[in-house]
């Protein structure tokens, strides 16, 4: 157990911070720990959580994905056309939305791998394309999502917010098994040491393609869930989510140098960010000062993470 805590130190710290924040939030909220309060909180958290998962897959292979928000905007707009009508039509629509996200990711991956261009630049450009397509679909916000479905996904299940159930499924049903596959291991190997991964007989090109496709897929899931929460399509949501997804993975202990961190950490980081925002809302801090406090907390958390280097006794250790 102690070993487990040590090797997953980052996730454990992020988890403890999250619990403390959540307790404070529920304690200060005028309506307390009701299902209603929890549901709204969990929905907001999961949207960013899925975006952070998308960012995680790019970051773990030593990349970055600036198109996360754009993929969300595009899939959100697609969802606003496809998630209404017959049950089978909706089911197809959900698959199509997520597939569209994965396709965006695959496109990023193909350009990065075969065009040999840095991920940051590629996704910067493709983000513009994705937003353009989203705008073609929805020049102004609109469309609709089946209300019954949206309610089912965004309210609660036996008193537990559905968003938390989805989070649990993502972790237990997807991440934990995935981590034990060759692909899951390959992602870390590629991010940690591309040379070692290559010499161990890993197909580094395929792994990188897969990583960006997974990033797109989770971007699609984030767009899908966003559609359930807002029930409209809006092409203008991209910017905030991309930057916040980066902040979330960093808070969750995922290192931008690749190879370290987990999906659990990315989710925890996203939940922390959103909980801070919610906490501000009820904290009595003047609303105008809230963005500043959010910024200060974010910067402070990151700076504490960086303070480790001040203890390095060999000056060369900080260059790597």
């Amino acid at each position, binding site marked *: 157990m102690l070993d487990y805590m040590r090797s997953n130190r980052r996730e454990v710290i992020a988890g403890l911070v999250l619990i403390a924040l959540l307790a404070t939030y529920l304690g200060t909220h005028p309506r307390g720990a009701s299902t209603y309060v929890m549901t709204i909180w969990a929905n907001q958290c999961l949207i960013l959580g899925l975006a952070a998962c998308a960012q995680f897959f790019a970051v773990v292979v030593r990349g970055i994905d*600036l198109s996360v928000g754009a993929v969300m905007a595009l899939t959100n707009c697609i969802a606003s056309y496809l998630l209404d009508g017959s049950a089978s039509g909706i089911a197809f629509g959900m698959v199509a939305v997520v597939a569209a996200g994965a396709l965006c990711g695959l496109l990023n991956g193909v350009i990065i791998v075969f065009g040999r261009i840095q991920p940051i630049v590629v996704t910067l450009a493709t983000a513009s394309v994705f937003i353009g397509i989203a705008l073609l679909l929805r020049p102004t916000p609109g469309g609709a999502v089946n209300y019954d479905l949206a309610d089912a996904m965004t309210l609660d299940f036996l008193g537990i917010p559905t968003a938390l159930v989805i989070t649990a499924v993502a972790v237990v049903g997807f991440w934990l098994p995935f981590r034990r596959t060759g692909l899951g291991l390959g992602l870390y190997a590629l991010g940690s040491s591309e040379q070692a991964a290559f010499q161990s007989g890993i197909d580094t090109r395929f792994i990188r393609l897969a990583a960006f496709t997974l990033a797109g897929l989770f971007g699609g899931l984030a767009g899908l869930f966003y559609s359930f929460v807002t029930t409209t399509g809006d092409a203008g949501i991209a910017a905030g989510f991309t930057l916040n997804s980066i902040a979330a993975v960093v808070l969750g202990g995922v290192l931008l140098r690749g190879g370290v961190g987990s999906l659990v950490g990315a989710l925890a980081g996203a939940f922390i960010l959103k909980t801070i925002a919610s906490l501000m809302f009820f904290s009595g801090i003047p609303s105008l000062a809230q963005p500043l406090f959010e910024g200060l907390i974010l910067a402070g958390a990151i700076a504490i993470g960086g303070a480790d280097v001040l203890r390095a006794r060999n000056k*060369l250790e900080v260059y790597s």
Partner: protein
Amino acid sequence: MRSAITLDSLMPFFGVVVLILAGSVFFPQVLSAGYLTQQLQIAAFLGLLATGATIVILLGHIDLSVPWVLTGAAILSTALVGTGNPVLSAIAVPAALAFGALIGVINAMGVAILRIPSMVWTLAVNSMLLGLAVLNTGGFNPKGQSSPLMVAMASGDILGLPISFLVWIAISLILGYVLTRTPFGRYLRSIGFNEKATFLSGVSTPSVLFVAFAIAGMCSALGGVMLAGYANQAYQSMGDPFLLPTIAAVVIGGTSILGGRGGLFGTIGGALFITLLTSILSVMQIDDAWRNIIFGVIILAMLLFQTLRKGAVA
């Protein structure tokens, strides 16, 4: 030091010529002096931001605090002028530049001393500045106005050339000289390639980072001041639309996002190209959606062309 003008850095200039010729086929007014000087005037805003970004990217870092350094400088300068106090009006521009330098120093503290990845730290600084701006202005568009100097810098002209363009080119020339002819410029590129080896060669690499980020902050601030002069006011989020085009302009100009390789000459071309591309797409009354798509595809095409050409050589 070899020439700063490489094939990569010439490419956006070819692109500009192609855009003008192609645009003039459909819209003859593209060839008019009025249209072209207006493009030079507008390109200067993006160009100044891209100048600062080039210096940081040459180091192998990135500055995501550009939007709110720009907005903050605009708010600060217009607020000082808005007081009506002649002394405060006079120091509006220097104060904004000092603000930019200060934020640059804060950026560098995180990057050089705490060794936080610049992408994360400058993002955090950006969100703190956003918070400060909201607190300061109450979330409404800030009151205040631009001084005659600011308006002149943004909209005036000398001998038919926009002053904003001349300011941009003057700064590019000065910084271009610094980058190619001084030890500081050499250190900057060396750090971009290999910070450890540079440090071991007896270079105080943290000082180089501090100066570079401070220069970048001042460039962003100057861009903000001129944009405020152009609009005769500051407004919330005025910097947000500039962040990604700034990076695009630098990269299209042949500067490697990994650091070390590139220079300001290409960035001038990159900023001109992106400004002209945006303008021609809007002159052609192509709607926003297609403009985004074409914008992204053309950037990708130029980048692919750059790497494929290198692949053919290697």
